[in-house]
């Protein structure tokens, strides 16, 4: 059984969606509080979506200073940042580049089409600072079919050179249950499971 940890920060709001989605897939999931050092082993650690520390100063800027982030077992567990989690990973310099304000300055919240694993999938996005720039060696694993926020090269998700850290702006955890009308998130979690 996959053992997953989900870091929660003040202002995180996608931790329950992520936990429910992972449990539906049969994973063993527990939360990790921002102030706790990570000492246990997890196959995969998620930094979920939300507004950590109210996005003050800049999205992810303050969360990167928390003990849970400082103690991430880089190179051991697979680390996955979703939306605000992606922003935290770039601010912590664990992934290169940065996520700036969307080109049209709007908060964008909708279902969008993405190129992922040689097919088109549909996932929700919801962000204000998703305009990615500055990739340096990472593999692009997900692209917007239509560039919704001005990102370089339509980038929606990247995977670091060592294949241990993933960042993505779309929300696969919101696309797992039939009742919500979208299930393509399962493909993303299957990909993650194969990468552990």
């Amino acid at each position, binding site marked *: 059984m996959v053992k997953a940890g989900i870091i929660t920060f003040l202002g995180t709001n996608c931790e329950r969606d992520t936990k429910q989605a992972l449990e539906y897939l049969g994973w063993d999931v527990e939360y990790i509080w921002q102030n706790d050092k990570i000492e246990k082993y997890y196959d995969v650690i998620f930094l979920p979506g939300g507004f950590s520390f109210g996005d003050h100063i800049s999205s992810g800027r303050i969360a990167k*200073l928390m003990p849970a982030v400082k103690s991430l077992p880089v190179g051991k567990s697979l680390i996955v940042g979703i939306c605000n989690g992606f922003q935290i990973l770039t601010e912590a310099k664990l992934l290169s*580049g940065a996520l700036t304000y969307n080109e049209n300055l709007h908060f964008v919240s909708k279902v969008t089409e993405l190129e992922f694993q040689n097919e088109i999938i549909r996932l929700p996005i919801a962000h204000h600072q998703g305009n990615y720039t500055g990739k340096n060696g990472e593999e692009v694993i997900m692209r917007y079919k239509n560039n919704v926020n001005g990102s370089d090269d339509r980038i929606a998700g990247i995977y670091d050179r060592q294949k241990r850290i993933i960042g993505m702006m779309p929300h696969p955890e919101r696309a797992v249950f039939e009742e919500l009308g979208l299930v393509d998130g399962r493909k993303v979690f299957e990909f993650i499971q194969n990468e552990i």
Partner: protein
Amino acid sequence: MEKFKAVVNVKLKDTIKDVKAQTLEQAIHQLMPIKNIKCRVGTRYLIEFDANDKKEAEKIVRTIADEILSNSVIEEYEILW
């Protein structure tokens, strides 16, 4: 200990597209017909603190600016005393 007061101005690097500044330029054009207007948008932080001397104070502010107030990938800052 001495009291210090620093001002840190943070803005996007000139190589990074500043969409807030573009919006500001459009707004100014709506307001009045100015030619060749160029804007950059930034944030100003005022920080007061105690330190042993100016050298230590500069180190403290630079650390705050590097770690919290700016992201060196896309932003640059200046410190004024």
